[in-house]
């Protein structure tokens, strides 16, 4: 590693008045509107903002790169004295991977599935930095050790599909460090991971960055995560800088209104409603089992939901929470057990259920883009359950659609005739809620309804759902992986792990220690808005214990 000797007092990366445009809908639109950024050697800078704020575009521009359909129209990017925007493509390529590296959000999509991990890892080192193969492999194994990967000597011999998501993300971080770069750009590296896995990856990334003294730009929409990683935070919105400050100062005293609203987003809480006594549950699942082919996914799942209440089902990916929803709706046939509705068993196959049974249980999906037919107008989408179940026609139908639109806080005159693609993500999710409400249901299953949305938008959806519940008395089965959401709206909580219910109870008792083992692990893995949180939690769990509970 012969790094050029440079004046260590000058900043590593200086971006001045950067302008980037993107091409869509037959025109160029500004994405980044004149951002300044300075990064010192060894410093970790956090970039925060909602989707569309220009974080990723800015992160890539720091490598002198733009995605297809984007172009840099002004400003400069100085990396260690070189203007990356004026550098020849060949020189730029030599710089990337050796002195500037990038860690993408989805490691699974970024690795080539046809090659062994270690071969992909050392590729840049061997071709660009001119290091021998044996030495590069030895360095790779050392990095795997630093990043606390299991079996560091042999894990590189595996293919990408043979390691877990969290491990793959750490291997990608190791790969970015292969040439000990001066700058690493982390683009939402833990967003796709479960909280208990995220904590490991965060710890590993932070240790490695500190150990090798790399500077880093850490991009995330999750403030609590950035608070653990960054020395300094920049808040972006609509391609402009909103606020910039040291992490502690930013957390303690944000100055701008927008930043304050981001900080306040997790303060929404409903008042937990007590379970009605001596009443039959609206929905009860009794000792249900189910499987996909030969693979069992649910084991003896039992839960009950009372009228007007919110039951939150929380668990990590693969815990069987969505399968439970599919079981209740009749899409996934139960191999044993029962689903009771007001005490009467429901047919396990939705095709055998009556129209009335189908009407009472409605569903809202995780990704509103695919949940709405792109070829139908809003009035058709919301109107169909009205005409299908309730037989409304003509003016009565339109009036009811207008009522529903008003209820979900969208202007009926403006939205009635629009198509889904003309709506934002949050508006689409509101339309999905209206479609569910149109059937006048008693139970709405919300499957990760806020996961695909920005935090501010998600909060609006939660508030809307709460208001609707108070007005109409519907029950929610709320499926989520997000502890904060459960804390905000649940009346009762069910914790799932590997297809089993491992813990259940009212919100208060679930969130009051002592916790069951897994519940405790899950809750304590949720990042807090405190820069000390990661250290504290790692201390608590101790060096000797595994960070994740083993099965």
């Amino acid at each position, binding site marked *: 590693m012969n790094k050029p000797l440079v004046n260590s007092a000058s900043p590593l990366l200086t971006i001045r008045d950067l302008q980037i445009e993107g091409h869509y809908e037959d025109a160029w639109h500004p994405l980044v509107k004149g951002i300044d950024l300075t990064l010192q050697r060894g410093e970790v800078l956090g970039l925060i903002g909602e989707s569309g704020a220009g974080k990723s575009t800015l992160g890539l521009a720091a490598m002198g790169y733009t995605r297809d359909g984007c172009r840099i129209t002004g400003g400069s990017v100085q990396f260690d004295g070189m203007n990356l925007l004026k550098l020849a493509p060949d020189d730029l390529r030599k710089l990337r991977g050796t002195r500037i590296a990038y860690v993408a959000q989805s490691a699974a999509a970024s690795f080539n599935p046809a090659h062994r991990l270690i071969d992909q890892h050392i590729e840049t080192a061997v071709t660009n930095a001119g290091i021998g193969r044996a030495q590069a492999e030895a360095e790779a194994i050392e990095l795997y050790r630093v990043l606390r990967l299991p079996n560091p000597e042999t894990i590189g011999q595996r293919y990408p599909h043979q390691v877990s998501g969290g491990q793959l993300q750490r291997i990608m971080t190791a790969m970015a460090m292969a040439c000990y770069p001066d700058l690493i750009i982390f683009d939402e590296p833990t967003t796709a991971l479960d909280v208990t896995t995220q904590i490991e990856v965060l710890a590993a990334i932070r240790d490695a960055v500190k150990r090798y003294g790399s500077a880093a730009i850490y991009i995330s929409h999750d403030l609590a995560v950035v608070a653990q990683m960054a020395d300094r935070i920049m808040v972006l919105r609509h391609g402009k800088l909103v606020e910039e400050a040291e992490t502690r100062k930013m957390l303690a005293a944000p100055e701008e209104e927008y930043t304050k609203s981001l900080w306040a987003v997790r303060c929404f809480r409903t008042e937990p409603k007590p379970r009605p006594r001596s009443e039959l549950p609206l929905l009860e699942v009794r000792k249900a089992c189910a499987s996909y082919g030969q693979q069992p996914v649910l084991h003896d799942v039992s839960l009950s939901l009372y009228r007007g209440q919110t039951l939150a089902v929380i668990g990590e990916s693969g815990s069987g929470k969505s399968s439970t929803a599919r079981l209740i709706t009749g899409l996934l046939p139960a191999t044993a057990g029962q689903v009771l509705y007001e005490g009467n068993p429901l047919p396990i196959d939705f095709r055998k259920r009556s129209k009335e049974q189908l009407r009472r249980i409605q569903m809202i999906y995780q990704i509103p883009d*695919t949940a709405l037919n792109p070829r*139908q107008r809003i009035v058709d989408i919301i109107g169909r359950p009205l005409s299908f179940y309730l037989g409304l026609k003509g003016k009565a139908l339109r009036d009811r659609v207008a009522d529903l639109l008003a209820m979900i806080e969208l202007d009926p005159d403006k939205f009635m005739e629009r198509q889904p693609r003309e709506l934002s993500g949050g508006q689409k999710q509101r339309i999905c809620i209206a479609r569910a409400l149109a059937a006048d249901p008693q139970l709405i299953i919300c499957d990760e309804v806020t996961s695909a949305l920005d935090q501010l938008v998600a909060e609006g959806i939660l508030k809307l759902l709460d208001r609707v519940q108070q007005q109409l008395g519907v029950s929610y089965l709320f499926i989520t992986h997000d502890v904060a959401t459960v804390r905000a709206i649940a009346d009762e909580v069910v914790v799932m792990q590997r297809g089993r219910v491992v813990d259940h109870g009212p919100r208060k008792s679930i969130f009051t220690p002592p916790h069951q083992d897994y519940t405790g692990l899950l809750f304590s893995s949720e990042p807090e808005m405190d820069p000390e949180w990661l250290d504290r939690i790692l201390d608590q769990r101790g060096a000797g214990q595994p960070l994740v509970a083993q099965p």
Partner: protein
Amino acid sequence: MKRLFIELIRAPLSAQFGMAVILLYILVALFAPVLAPFGETEVVGDGFAPWGGQFLLGTDNLGRDMFSRLVFGARNTLGIAFLTTVLAFLLGGTCGLVAAIKGGWVDQGLSRVVDILMAIPQLIFALLILSVVGTTATSLVLVIALLDATRVFRLARAVAMTVVVQDFVEAARLRGEGLWWLVTREVLPNAAAPLIAEFGLRFCFVFLFISALSFLGLGIQPPTADWGSMVRDNAVLITFGDVSPLLPALAVALITVSVNFVVDWMLHKSSGLKEC
């Protein structure tokens, strides 16, 4: 209406050319009796009369007016090809969408039948069946429609597959919607763009196929004017340096190219690709 007009103005030159030619063919086919100076099967002079004079493009081997037969040929060949394509799409498209939505044994059954039909080379299969059932226009249309329906089935099923896995189709199923609603309201509108483009291409293939069969003597039967058989009947003229037999071939080539131009443009629009 105004938007459609703007779209047409902004279309590339190749697509505009294609549409102009298609429009011309349709007009010729519709007004054939008005445009043609002589009847379709009328013997009006000596065989192989030269161009010019009384007969604009000369006469054929039996002394029928070449120009008139070309004009009527547009009507017969285009009409039969269009009818066949529509039938193929009704059959193949419906089956494909239903197979994708229903899945399970319905899908398996339909797909295997289509596999069997596709395993036999198309031309040989057509020759075989037509020589058994006889070469009436009806059997010609039915046989080619059946054969082409297999290709349409494959495309319709593949496109519908990507649509049926989306949540809005699941939502419609959970609502309790029937098969007809799922096909016509949920899946078909989202699968329409590639199917429309395929319609144009399929039309070309059917058209070529009919011409080929006619050339082989199993297509549209004489004395009905048809471009394929017109090439065959007058092929001998080529040896004398007369280009007349190439005119019907040229007519076939022109419509094929034109349809492809238009389809290219439509595919481009529906895929949302941008030149930049």
